């Protein structure tokens, strides 16, 4: 049983991999991760709004039409449209000044792709963590015992503190929140500011959609609970820390 962890610096953040395999040796896992690196750097080249030459940047400038973009870009475009409809426009990559920005979808979508490629390469236990948006496959073997991945949702006010643990065998979990990136700015009395929620965690089968839904819940707050009554989101759950009370609300089968 081989277990290895990797960090890939990409997308302006860190992509963390935790991989286990009973079949592959270390060299084979390393080789699979090299393939992952090529893919994630390619995603950056195609989708980054910070790279003038990316397809997304060219779309934003009106230089090309979506029909002229590669299949992956077209796929994300259509998936973003579906997420926009599911969230009643709370997630809307087209509502951004400057044009189409799929950044709120791509990380989760890419994490799913990375996990798929690693499973196909022979890794049975896969955690892909794209700065808090995770895709998990096959559970994890800890000290010889197989079980689910145990993913902690951390307190936005104190990253050392885990508020809740979700056990996931196969699926995705994404959290958006008033988490720091660089320096926190605190009001002396209250801490951070959010829009509709303090922190929103979404679990479900698709990484791109969990990513988009978590972001959208930050905007919509409790109004977003209704989305999860839709048949398309029957397999999705949300756990949201309210901004005002510090309490939480949840919806879906993973919340109990």
């Amino acid at each position: 049983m081989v277990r290895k962890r990797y960090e890939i610096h990409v997308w302006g953040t860190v992509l963390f991999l935790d991989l286990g395999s009973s079949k592959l040796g270390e060299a084979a896992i390393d080789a699979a991760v090299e393939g992952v690196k090529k893919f994630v750097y390619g995603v950056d080249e195609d989708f980054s709004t910070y790279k003038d030459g990316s397809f997304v940047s060219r779309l934003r400038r009106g230089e090309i039409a979506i029909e002229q973009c590669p299949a992956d870009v077209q796929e994300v475009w259509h998936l973003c449209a579906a997420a926009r409809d599911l969230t009643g426009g709370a997630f809307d990559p087209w509502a951004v000044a400057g044009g189409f920005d799929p950044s709120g979808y791509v990380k989760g979508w890419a994490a799913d792709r990375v996990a798929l490629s690693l499973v196909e390469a022979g890794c049975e236990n896969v955690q892909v963590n794209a700065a808090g948006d995770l895709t998990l496959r096959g559970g994890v073997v800890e000290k010889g015992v197989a079980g689910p991945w145990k993913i902690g949702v951390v307190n936005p006010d104190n990253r050392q503190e885990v508020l809740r643990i979700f056990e996931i065998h196969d699926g995705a979990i994404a959290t958006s929140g008033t988490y720091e990136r660089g320096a926190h700015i605190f009001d002396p009395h209250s801490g951070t500011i959010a829009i509709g929620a303090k922190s929103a965690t979404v679990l479900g089968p698709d990484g791109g959609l969990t990513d988009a839904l978590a972001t959208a819940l930050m905007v919509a707050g409790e109004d977003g609970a209704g989305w999860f009554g839709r048949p398309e989101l029957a397999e999705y759950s949300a756990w949201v820390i309210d901004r005002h009370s510090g309490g939480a609300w949840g919806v879906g089968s993973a919340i109990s």
Partner: protein
Amino acid sequence: MKRAILIATGTVGGLGAVLAITPPTFTSTESSSMALPGSSAAPVATPSAASSVAAAPTTPAKSGSTTKPTTVKPAATAGAQTQAPVVAAPATKAVSGTFTGDSVDVRYGFVQVKITVENGKITDAQAVTAPSGRNDRWTQMSVPVLRQRTLAAQSANISGVSGASFTSYGWYTSLASALAKAGM
């Protein structure tokens, strides 16, 4: 498919957590409806034995219908400590007024924050621009974050961590510029 809804509220409830959908306004001066900490007006949640689970209708709701969470009051947060937040450097002189931060392009839209300062303390902050066109209010209060659900972060217990998306980055950036304008 059976669906469950769980709500656990902290020690302060009934404060209108559901957002009002109002068009963005740049001149809003309405006072907050939220009680400040220590205010006798702050309603206190009625403690009940424990959080409970309410089963939603077993038929999936039709698209467009609203699955409204119902509030369940958990036991009072025994031993809740108020976390001491990192305090921003105090203003050298007592500033008052409203200050609007820069408009920041975040990954799902634009965010612009306006703060109201009274005698060097932030008394209100709101989005004058938010991605969905919402205008939401926030006011100062201590936030008891679910102490009864809090677990010590022990690496032995977890194999991964979720919770570092940068949704709020624009808030920090815009808020920072508003604070700078306020000289805070």
